[in-house]
């Protein structure tokens, strides 16, 4: 009998092993067998890895704290930046609301032309109720033009430069506005005061003034256009033997929080001073 060479046996064995592996792989048994063989190895690997990581962490924790601190500081900076951004956006939102309200007011009275301006300051003297606006003669703003908000009358332009204007508020002591009362159907004057309060004066004592009566500009005197809201009557007073009635006025505009206003640019105030008769000498 012819002896089969060793090399042939080897090839046969390899072919059998490969064939067996293929059969196992095709039948799906290979994965399970490999899994069972590798599982102890994985267990050992995990055990070893956990211990090694613990040792590594022990030596690297201080460095991690520093990194964390840096990250924390960076995140805090980011939070601060975002918070300031939120505040800025909220501010812009408030300004947008104000501008929308002013726009609505301007749309309601399309016969007027307006210039919107921001309030940038107040007169330094505590005796005066004046504000400073960021628009001036360069923007078509001139002395005497009325200033309003969507809530009502604010005042009139007192002085202008090329890029700024000073407004005398109706609450100033020297301010006098000719007005009409809607319910009482009479005319009167609204005067300012050093404390910023408004008072209704020069009201005929025979007229009955009621609390809550609405006060609008009358247009008399030519300083302000008619039909601009000023406020409501509060606490009318009729003193005995007084020539006129008085009342305090609740202004519709909050003068403490004024931020943006509209200047009516197509209104030209009339100076009636030369028409007022002077006593004969």
């Amino acid at each position, binding site marked *: 009998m012819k002896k089969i060479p060793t090399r042939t046996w080897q090839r046969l064995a390899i072919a059998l092993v490969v064939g067996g592996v293929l059969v196992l792989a095709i039948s799906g048994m290979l994965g399970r067998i490999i899994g069972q063989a590798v599982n102890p190895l994985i267990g050992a690997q995990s055990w070893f890895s956990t211990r090694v990581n613990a040792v590594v962490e022990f030596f690297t924790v201080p460095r991690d704290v520093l990194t964390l601190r840096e990250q924390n500081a960076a995140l805090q900076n980011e939070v601060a930046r975002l918070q300031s951004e939120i505040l800025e956006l909220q501010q812009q939102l408030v300004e947008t609301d104000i501008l929308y309200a002013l726009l609505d007011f301007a749309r309601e009275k399309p016969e007027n032309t307006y210039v919107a301006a921001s309030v*940038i*300051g107040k*007169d*330094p003297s*505590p005796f005066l109720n004046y504000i*400073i606006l960021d628009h001036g003669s360069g923007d078509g703003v001139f002395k005497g033009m009325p200033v309003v908000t969507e809530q009502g009358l604010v005042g009139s332009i007192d002085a202008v430069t090329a890029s700024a204007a*000073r407004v005398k508020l109706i609450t100033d*002591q020297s301010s006098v506005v000719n007005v009409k009362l809607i319910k009482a159907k009479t005319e009167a004057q609204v005067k300012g005061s*050093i*404390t910023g309060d408004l008072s209704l004066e020069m009201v005929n004592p025979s007229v009955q003034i009621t609390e809550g009566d609405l006060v609008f500009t009358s247009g008399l005197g030519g300083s302000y256009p008619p039909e601009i809201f000023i406020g409501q009557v509060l606490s009318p007073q009729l003193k005995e033997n007084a020539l006129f009635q008085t009342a305090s006025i609740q202004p519709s505009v909050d003068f403490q929080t004024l931020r943006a206003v509209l200047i009516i640019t197509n209104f030209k105030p009339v100076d009636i001073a030369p028409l007022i008769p002077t006593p004969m000498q």
Partner: protein
Amino acid sequence: MAVIFSIPILLVLLVLQSTVASKVTLLNGTADLLLVWLAAWALSSKDRSGYILAGIAGALVSYITAIPWYIYLSAYLLVILLARYFSQKLWESPLLAMLIIIMIASIYLYTFTFIGLRIKGVDYPLSISLNQVIIPSVFLNLFIAIPVFAIAKDFSKWFYRLENAS
């Protein structure tokens, strides 16, 4: 040199005056930052730059305000005049001098403003002006006098050290 360094400070104070200080009120009174700063600077400085600064400050405020121009100008010049006088007389207690100057200059400023406005034709009632504006404003000026004096003194020390070094 002192004038050049002080002009930006005056401008910043003017902005603060018309934006912040005018809203921080006691009744209807407000503090006058420029007046207090001028007094503090005049007491701390070693030269006569205060007069020029008073002129500049008076012109700046007069440009903004509706008050007659001569009122602020004269009040600020009076501050410097008083400071020069008191720094010679009360040289050992500058803080006391500061308070006296602020009181006299504030009373002068607000009383003169009251008179000036009445001359202009605006009828301000005396008792309300006194109770609501003049006394509270004087009090506020006195209230901020001490911190402003400390800042002005530090500033003048820094400034003169810088001037000597150059």
